[in-house]
């Protein structure tokens, strides 16, 4: 008995017990570290994977949102092997086979951003927390894209932004989990500048009307930089609220300002309204400083051109993509979208569709849905066959680099969809910039767990 007592004294029993408890507690951490790494927010477990499409169904950008939703539905069909496959056969990466993503059938949920940050984040949270979406895509409005992008970073969910043109999205407010295929305001300025100089000379005085949020601010800054480089003078830059509807109070002062070019940093319904009203005020037929008065709409889409009608004729702008591009991929996408929905796709639809395919392809190449691996697969990814020529997803700011189209409203449209004409292309080299000029920080790869 005494022998037993000496060998298993109180202290030893406690020590041994504690060591045992510690070992049981710690060993799973050591033995299954590899397995832990695979645990992340909304890891798809069944035979389906859910994507979240967060688009404006109401508000100033509702037209764009509706078209984006059509493109997403088309992309899901093509990923699941339905329809004609769209861009999949043209895409330079050949991992997509119409068998879903990693063999899982693609399902989707939708939400309305209302073109405002709060509702956009609420609906993104619903899709992540309730519906288990593993990726969120959408946008229209850079304010919304920036807000949702930072939410997605917090939750460890990849965000593939669609229509967002502000420099901040992949600049000051860039995030490790956010990716943008669309071009930005800086690239618009660089692309549009030479064309404006060639068409309107370098003795001009420009007046800016600017949508009062992140996109408008950076677009105004980029346009002022590009036009002042031509030798133009900036008379004034006036901020207008988003969704103002009536711009007459902002256009009246333009008449007597001594300006001879009006640059409208507006998009969606705002762009349509301000352009139409400027034309109604007779600005197009006006003479100022001995020259013809000119209007410029730096970012233009075919939806806006359709909305503005005749007012758009002769007006210069830039586009990410246009459906009449002659390359095979663009034609295939236009045909596929037209067959499904009965109208050619807008640039918003195109970028939404491409982003969905790019995400699916990155997951296939990574071989997992684990976000850090998917992010690494997207970073510095060089691809082609998506309608924009050779394109690079730059790793340092998650911005795509590709040619920028300079477009002009057609004077004599041959049909109701043939509204814009691509007048020149700014090469990918000319619109490439140093990521440092916009600052910002991407943040960590490691995902946060959502609740």
């Amino acid at each position: 008995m005494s022998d037993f007592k000496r060998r298993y004294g109180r202290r030893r029993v406690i020590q041994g017990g504690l060591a045992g408890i510690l070992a049981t507690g710690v060993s799973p951490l050591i033995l299954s570290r590899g397995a832990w790494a695979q645990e992340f927010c909304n890891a798809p477990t069944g035979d389906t994977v859910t994507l979240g499409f967060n688009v404006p169904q109401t508000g100033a950008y509702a037209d764009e949102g509706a078209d984006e939703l059509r493109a997403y539905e088309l992309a899901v069909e093509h990923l699941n092997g339905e329809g004609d496959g769209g861009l999949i056969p043209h895409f330079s990466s050949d991992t997509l086979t119409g068998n879903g993503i990693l063999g899982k059938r693609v399902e989707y949920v939708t939400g309305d951003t209302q073109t405002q940050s709060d509702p956009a984040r609420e609906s993104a949270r619903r899709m992540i927390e309730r519906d288990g979406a593993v990726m969120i895509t959408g946008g229209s409005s850079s304010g919304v894209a920036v807000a949702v992008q930072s939410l997605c970073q917090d939750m460890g969910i990849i965000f593939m932004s669609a229509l967002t043109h502000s420099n901040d999205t992949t600049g000051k407010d860039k995030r490790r989990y956010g990716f943008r295929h669309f071009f930005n305001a800086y690239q618009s300025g660089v692309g549009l500048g030479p064309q404006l100089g060639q068409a309107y000379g370098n003795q001009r005085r420009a007046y800016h009307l600017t949508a009062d949020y992140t996109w408008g601010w950076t677009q105004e800054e980029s346009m002022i930089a590009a036009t002042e480089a031509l030798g133009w003078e900036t008379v004034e830059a006036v901020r207008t609220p988003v969704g103002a509807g009536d711009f007459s109070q902002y256009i009246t002062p333009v008449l007597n300002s001594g300006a001879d070019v009006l640059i409208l940093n507006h998009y969606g319904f705002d762009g349509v309204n301000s352009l139409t009203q400027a034309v109604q005020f007779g600005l197009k037929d006006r003479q100022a400083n001995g020259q013809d008065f000119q209007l410029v709409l730096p970012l233009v889409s075919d939806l806006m051109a359709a909305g503005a009608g005749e007012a758009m004729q002769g007006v210069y702008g830039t586009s990410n993509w246009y459906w009449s591009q002659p390359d095979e991929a663009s034609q295939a996408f236009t045909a596929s979208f037209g067959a499904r929905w009965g109208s050619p796709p807008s640039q918003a639809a195109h970028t939404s569709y491409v982003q969905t395919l790019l995400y699916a392809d990155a997951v296939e190449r990574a071989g997992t849905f684990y976000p850090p691996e998917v992010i690494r697969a997207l970073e510095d990814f060089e691809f082609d066959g998506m309608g924009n020529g050779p394109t690079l997803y730059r790793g340092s700011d998650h911005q795509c680099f590709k040619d920028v189209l300079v477009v002009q409203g057609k004077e004599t449209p041959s049909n109701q969809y043939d509204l814009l004409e691509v007048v020149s292309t700014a090469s990918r080299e000319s619109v490439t910039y140093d990521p440092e000029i916009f600052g910002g920080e991407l943040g960590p790869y490691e995902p946060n767990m959502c609740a």
Partner: protein
Amino acid sequence: MDIFRLPRKDVITLALFSIVVLTMPIWLAPLGAAYPGLMQQFAIFAIFAVGFNILFGLTGYLSFGHAAFLGVGSYTAVWSFKLLTMDAIPALIFAIIMSGVFALAIGFVSLRRSGIYFSILTLAFAQMSYNLAYSVLTPITNGETALQLTSQDPRIIDMMFRDRLAGLPSPSLLGTSLGGYGGFYLCAAILLVVFFIAQKIFTSPFGMQLRAIKSNQTRMSYTGFNTRPYTLAAFVISGMYAGLAGGLLAVTDPLAGAERMQWTASGEVVLMTILGGVGTLLGPVIGAWLIKYMENIFSAFNARILADLFSWLPDGVQDGVVLVSSKFVGEGWKLTEGLVFVLVVVFLPGGIMEGTRRIKSLFGARRANRSASKEQLSTTAAE
């Protein structure tokens, strides 16, 4: 302690209410709303509506600008995150103080008038605050883009204790993260506390004085009673409730946008209160939940979900039903909201609470009838 004492009926209400709030993750699950994001909204907007009801329900002063205080609370909380610390407590305290100061200033001017003039004055102030936040004070509010955290924020207090980590920090409560369910339980706990405070106000002499002002302010004045300090106190208290709600919005999601102060947001809380039942304690909470539920769940329905829902109908009928019902969900959810509101106001002017009262009295009346007839029987038997 005496200040924690409540009438027995109110204690039962509070207990039942606590159970309902804390078991939300369970009973909301079949309704498709049991996810932290929406449950946080439920708790926060319940706080907002309860506070609004202290002013509107008790004094009868209809403020059309309460969202301004919500916005002030949010901006203050986000600035507290940016400048001081990511902890929720200072953020909420500052949010309450700042919105209280704003309410004092706006209330001092607006309460010189009553009725429609008061409503218009508050609406004007709220719209002014919205425009200031939207386009004038953009260095403070960041306008349409919304005020957000950045990794370069000073965060003075946090920086004293730990180094800057990679990526953005998230709000916490004494070191515990407030993501997901943590955030919900914080909001729920605060909701219970402020609900208790509202109950105390309703049963206190102060609450009685406010009700007296509502029923006849002129008579109150003639009895030599100065009503202004009382209405102002009610206004400031309800402004602080709104500020608390705004602060919580920022705690659960550290971003503050100007649209929170827009007149539509002020109108929404009026809708919530009227829908649930003005002047009742539970009514505004129910109204808030109903509107937030419609906004978040109905707006997410799309034609595909509807088609699944009605797949049991024959083919031709199904298409028709989907076509009609799709107008009321998705982007058309506001149509549903409007219809429900009209129906409630026309048939139940006292809101949903009046509906429950009517149902109760229906049963009560039946029971009373039964006992009355029993009595009759027994008396006849005795004869």
